């Protein structure tokens, strides 16, 4: 699998996960507080996001590539291992599965309980949408800028992110309900593996080391990380079963 295909796939999956979380929040706000306020919040968040990316994006391109790879590799490793840790805890039964239905229900209840200003834009709906899109959007922007600049292909990373967000928004508009049919836990597991593998590759190169085989180390690292996670899930499932049986 070529490096570009891996880049597209990783950015697409990571951005799809962030998109599902943002769409869940916007749907809850739109259905309970009115679409005008929710969509105004989305629009305002996108403007702020564009300003942040325009200000910080070019700054990354002037950093020496080794420094960029060391910092970005380290950050991706931290994010990747945190995602993988949660995914393994969920897959082995130690942590409840991420449930978009429950999150949607909680957001709905909170939105219905909040006071409402009948005039103009509803502040609660606007703020909830704005925060949801801005926070998840920041993660999407980080993924695009870091993956894109490290692989010298920001346009491809941006295209993957746009495709992911468009697919998730289209699904959200089509069902107008929580996107619980999207296998978010499986997606997160896969993204955790990919981020960890890419983070290891770039972090080590940024630290001055060279991988035997160059770029071919990336798919090998993905397979290695996945295999390690499978072994860990299996071991933890064995530990978890007697604990459940003893209750």
């Amino acid at each position, binding site marked *: 699998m070529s490096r570009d295909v891996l880049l597209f796939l990783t950015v697409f999956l990571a951005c799809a996960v962030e998109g599902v979380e943002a769409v869940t929040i916007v749907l809850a706000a739109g259905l309970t507080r009115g679409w005008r306020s929710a969509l105004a919040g989305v629009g305002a968040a996108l403007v702020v996001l564009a300003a942040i990316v325009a200000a910080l994006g070019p700054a990354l391109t002037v950093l020496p590539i080794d420094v960029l790879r*060391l910092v970005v*590799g*380290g*950050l991706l*490793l*931290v*994010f990747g*291992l*945190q995602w*993988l*840790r*949660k995914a*393994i*805890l969920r897959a082995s039964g*130690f942590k409840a599965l991420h449930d978009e239905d429950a999150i949607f229900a909680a957001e709905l209840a909170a939105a219905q309980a909040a006071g409402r200003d009948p005039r103009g834009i509803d502040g609660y709906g606007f703020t909830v949408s704005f925060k949801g899109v801005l926070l998840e959007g920041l993660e999407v922007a980080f993924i695009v800028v870091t993956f894109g600049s490290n692989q010298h292909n920001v346009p491809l990373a941006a295209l993957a992110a746009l495709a992911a967000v468009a697919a998730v928004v289209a699904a959200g508009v089509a069902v107008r309900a929580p996107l619980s049919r999207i296998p978010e836990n499986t997606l997160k597991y896969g993204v955790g593996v990919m981020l*960890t593998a890419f983070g*290891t590759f770039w*972090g*080590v190169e*940024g*630290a*001055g*080391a*060279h*991988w*035997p085989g160059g770029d071919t*180390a990336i798919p090998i*690292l993905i397979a*290695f*990380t996945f295999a*390690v*996670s499978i072994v*860990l899930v299996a071991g*933890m499932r064995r*530990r*978890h079963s007697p604990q459940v049986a003893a209750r």
Partner: protein
Amino acid sequence: MSRLRALGAFIYDFVIGDDPLIAAGIVVGLGLTAALEGAGVAAWWLMPIAVVALLSLSLRRATR
């Protein structure tokens, strides 16, 4: 002040996450890799081992 504190908490949560051991271990691992390479020793193998060790240790701490 409370907004500044909230921003700090957001950045900490965004970058460090649930287990600070992971972030600390990665900094140490990458630092050791750079130090070994600086001394002329090939050190590409160190981080994959560190990743396995950190993940196992962090999962152990989470389920203790």
